[in-house]
């Protein structure tokens, strides 16, 4: 099995190389590129599936593979090794499975692009990096993947690089991610300093004996990495811009896989986080705020991909709420369901965009359900799932999260001392409230996007058409999963994961046993919220279409505020980028050129030269003045000499 494990990431890597080599060749080869890449992804999926079977066969087993010793500076050593356990299995299946579907979809979506071999090479490279991220046996291999996915994200966002805007968006994504990565690095350093290792196995053994303050600090630092990668406040700004990339990229990287890396990392480091209650509170707060803020922005977006992007940020916020409540398996559950419905939504949106000749503005859509029935149905299902419509997968995962947040104080006594109190409301209840409100908004804006896109009259110019089968088949598969996964496999999945986690606080389940009634009440309540949101959405964008307009008119300030995304980009621009750039220019022009180079370096040169000019004056050319100067100097020298060295006469 060890070799199989090594092969899993190797497949997409080879695929990437092959497709890249093809890129220089002619059109016939270009057509092959997509299939080669898809084959690599599918191959990887099949291998993963086998591994998963093998893993499941033996209870409590893990599969490890050691490739080579990456580098060692004794006593510190980093192995390039892989670890396949239940958590990794879940993630790998999602990555390769959903990844394969998206590859397939992309064959259709990118069929007209002259540079698609490059595209598929990047896409495969992304799979490779993502697999490294989830399969790594230590934090550093994870970091390799972590940075690797960042790179691929950069390359793919800027794939259509002729438009400088896309390239800027890619760069923004990379740099903002790097801010997070810097935190990640520091977290790793702290861990190395405390435990001497970065291996997960070693870390979980050592962490209980480490100074709790350091644990908290390391946890926060690693979380900063997660904030960057998973687009949380305050580093979420890159994700909406990242929609500049081709839609399959948005589906694969910015919805299903890469952005959940932060969540995965926290799950992987759960031992660390379970010893860091304060850090968990921070995670909870950040997750909640992100979920809420992103949802408010999503409500007013008109670009279909932007809506989905903000919804992704918002959903990621939910995942971090779960993580912040130490309910690691719940978070992962939401990762999985989110991968299904959000990938489906993105690809549905992509299908619409493809069908409408690269139009993304929802105001130019309308009534498409007739023209693109398959896309419509899948989009509808996924919308229901994300909105938390009863018994869809999203309903189960989101509900589980809200429930754990609701219960966290009680179930995790270790966290009590850090629970902040807002007035009389404990932190977790406050977060729960915000979470419910966000759920309402989610249902509303997703319905809004559905209504604006598929209902009403067509408002565009081009003749829309349904997408080809390569694109719709993945849509259907994902829609089916989005609809049924939670209902069919939800329980089993949770148990599977909980069986894996050793220090999982098992919040939900523990509570479930004791507060069955409360649980069911809350369940009903959230069903109601979801349906309410959907109903409002439907009403606003069909019968009572005046309401949104009236709202916009009356609350112009608020609308502006939301349309401009809480002015966050502008805020960063004004507070961070511009001062920094001004400061750099100051450093260059004033410090470097003027102070160091001008005054100190050239200045000292000029000083010496000026000295030369002054001394030259003595050289007047007059013989008598020479004689005079010589004589006076001699006189002075002897005088000085006699004064300082008195001798007997």
């Amino acid at each position, binding site marked *: 099995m060890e070799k199989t494990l090594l092969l899993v990431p190797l497949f997409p890597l080879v695929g990437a190389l092959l497709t890249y080599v093809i890129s220089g060749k002619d059109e016939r080869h270009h057509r092959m590129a997509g299939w080669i890449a898809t084959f690599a992804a599918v191959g990887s999926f099949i291998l993963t599936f086998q591994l998963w079977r093998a893993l499941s066969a033996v209870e409590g087993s893990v599969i490890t593979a050691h490739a080579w010793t990456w580098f060692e500076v004794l006593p510190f050593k980093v192995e390039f090794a892989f670890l396949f356990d239940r958590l990794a299995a879940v993630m790998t299946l999602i990555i390769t499975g959903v990844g394969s579907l998206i590859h397939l979809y992309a064959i259709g979506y990118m069929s007209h692009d002259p540079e698609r071999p490059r595209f598929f090479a990047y896409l495969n490279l992304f799979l490779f990096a993502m697999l490294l991220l989830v399969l790594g046996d230590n934090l550093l291999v994870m970091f390799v993947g972590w940075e690797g996915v960042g790179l691929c994200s950069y390359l793919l966002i800027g794939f259509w690089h002729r438009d400088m805007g896309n390239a800027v968006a890619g760069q923004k994504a990379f740099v903002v991610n790097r801010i997070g990565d810097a935190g990640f690095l520091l977290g790793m350093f702290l861990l190395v300093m405390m435990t001497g290792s970065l291996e997960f196995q070693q870390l979980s053994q050592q962490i209980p004996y480490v100074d709790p303050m350091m644990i908290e600090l390391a946890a926060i630092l690693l979380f900063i990495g997660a904030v960057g990668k998973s687009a949380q406040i305050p580093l979420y700004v890159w994700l909406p811009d990242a929609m500049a990339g081709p839609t399959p990229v948005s589906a694969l990287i910015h919805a299903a896989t890469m952005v959940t890396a932060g969540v995965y990392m926290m799950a992987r480091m759960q031992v660390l986080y379970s010893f860091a209650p304060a850090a968990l509170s921070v995670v909870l707060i950040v997750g909640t705020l992100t979920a809420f803020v992103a949802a408010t922005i999503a409500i007013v977006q008109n670009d279909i991909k932007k809506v989905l992007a903000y919804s992704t940020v918002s959903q990621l916020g939910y995942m971090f709420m779960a993580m912040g409540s130490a309910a690691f398996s719940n978070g992962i559950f939401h990762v999985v369901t989110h991968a299904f419905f959000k990938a489906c939504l993105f690809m549905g949106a992509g299908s619409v965009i493809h069908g409408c000749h690269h139009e993304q503005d929802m105001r130019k859509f309308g009534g498409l359900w007739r023209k693109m029935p398959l896309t419509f149905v899948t989009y509808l299902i996924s919308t229901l799932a994300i909105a938390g419509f009863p018994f869809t997968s999203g309903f189960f995962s989101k509900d589980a999260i809200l429930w754990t947040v609701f219960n966290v104080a009680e179930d995790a006594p270790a966290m009590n001392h850090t629970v902040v109190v807002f007035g009389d409301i404990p932190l977790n209840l406050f977060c729960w409230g915000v979470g419910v409100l966000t759920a309402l908004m989610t249902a509303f804006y997703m319905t809004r996007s559905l209504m604006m896109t598929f209902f009403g009259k067509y408002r565009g110019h081009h003749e829309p058409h349904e997408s080809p089968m390569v694109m719709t088949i993945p849509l259907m598969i994902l829609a089916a999963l989005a609809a049924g996964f939670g209902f069919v496999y939800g329980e089993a999945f949770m148990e599977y994961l909980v069986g894996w986690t050793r220090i999982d606080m098992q919040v939900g389940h523990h509570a479930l046993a004791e507060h069955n009634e409360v649980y069911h009440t809350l369940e009903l309540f959230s069903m109601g919220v979801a349906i309410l949101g959907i109903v409002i959405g439907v009403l606003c964008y069909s019968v009572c279409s005046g309401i949104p307009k009236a709202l916009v008119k009356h609350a112009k300030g608020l609308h502006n505020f939301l349309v401009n995304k809480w002015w966050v980009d502008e805020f960063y621009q004004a507070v961070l980028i511009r001062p920094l750039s001004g400061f750099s220019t100051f450093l260059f022009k004033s410090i470097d050129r003027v102070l160091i180079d001008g005054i100190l370096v050239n200045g000292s040169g000029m000083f010496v*030269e000026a000295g*030369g000019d002054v001394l030259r004056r*003595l050289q007047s*050319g007059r013989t008598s003045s020479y004689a005079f*100067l*010589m004589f006076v100097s001699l006189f002075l*020298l002897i005088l000085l000499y006699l004064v*300082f060295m008195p*001798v007997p*006469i």
Partner: protein
Amino acid sequence: MSTIDIIAAAPLFCMTFGILALLVLDLFRIDALPFPRLWWGVGICGATAFLFWPFLSMNETAFSGMMAVDTFTFAFALMILGGSAVTFMLSDELLEGQRVEPSADLDLLVLFSALGGIMMVAATHMMLLFVGFELLSICVYVLTGSARNQRASSEGALKYFILGAFSSAFLLYGMALVYGATGSMYYSGIAAHIGEPSMMLLIGIGLMIFGFGFKVSLVPFHFWTPDVYQGAPTSMSGFMAVVVKAAAFGAFFRLMASGFGSVSASWSAMVAVLAVLSMTIGNVIALRQTSVKRMLAYSSIAHAGYAMVGFLALGEGGGAAVVFYMLVYSLMTLAAFGVVLVVSSGTEAQYDQDSIESLQGLGWTHPLLGIAMTVAMLSLAGVPPLGGFIGKFYLFSAAVRAGYTSIAVVAALNSVISLYYYLRVVVVMYFSGERQLSWEPPRVLVFGPRLALILLTTGTLYMGIFSSRYYETAQIAVRSLMQL
């Protein structure tokens, strides 16, 4: 006359007879002879040098203790003779370009001043020193003014003469005071009777330092140097910068070491002040020069300052360093003056056509001149692996060993300043592109200057890498001096 007297007299007689022979031949128009006249000068120098060879392994005095027959004399005599020979070679067919009428008189004067220089260096009696000193000086006054119809030349000669006579009077007065304080004119006698330094002695030493300081152009006795170097015909400037300076340094060092060595504590502070002043002021003023000759003059002032550092560490280290430094200094300075000479002569140019711009593009149009000048400049600046670097290394070692680390630091900082103007010459020769000159330097170098430049350049390089033997000889030379 004992054997030692004969050995001591042989080279001097050889030289004198050579000079006389040349004088006689000139009467019979030696231009008709198979060799160009200048090569006779080289021949005389060579023969004399050959006769100096026995000095290498000797350590005695001749003529009742008036003249030293030792390695030190040998070393400086060879430098003086070599410098003179190179001066002859460089002047080959280039004198007219410097508005000097070629005549045997010039050769005679060069040889006479070389003779005077050797006497100075060998002297162990103050009167012999004075005679050598004056023989050298008077000849050089005339050489400076040898471009008779050039204003600069006569002006330079006048300045040199007046100031030179003025300073040699001080030297003489210093001698009288030293004589008065010790009752002897022999160096050994002075050393023997020096006892506790008296005021009279100290003033005497001070005045003698003035006299020599003038000759080796130490600040503040340097004022004549730039004017005279610039005014004199270039071949004579080179001669002055090398032969005169080497002779003066040799004599100066012998006097200070074997005469006043035991009271060095009382004059070393003065020497230190002069050394620091010389290097600093020399380098700083050199920065602002546009005439290459004038720049080289200031550079020679600075180098005199460096060499003076060796006086501070009179023991083996310092002395040997001074000897070695004068050797490499001679090589690189002669090369530099040689290039200037070739470039500025042989043309219808102005007499003092030696602005730095006149070298523009020289490195590409005349590779040999370019390389010679570059090596000379870098070596003067003390860049390894050239002789100038090794010379500085020995000097710094001596200074540090004697506890004058701060002076070594000052010297190092001065080297940085000097880099600027030395490198500017390289810049002009190589980096500024080629310029169409209003006048053309000679396309084909005649044999003499070519040979001289090749010898000097390889010598500079060689000294940088294989200095050890020469330094050891210098050590022996100085050791013999200290025992005297």
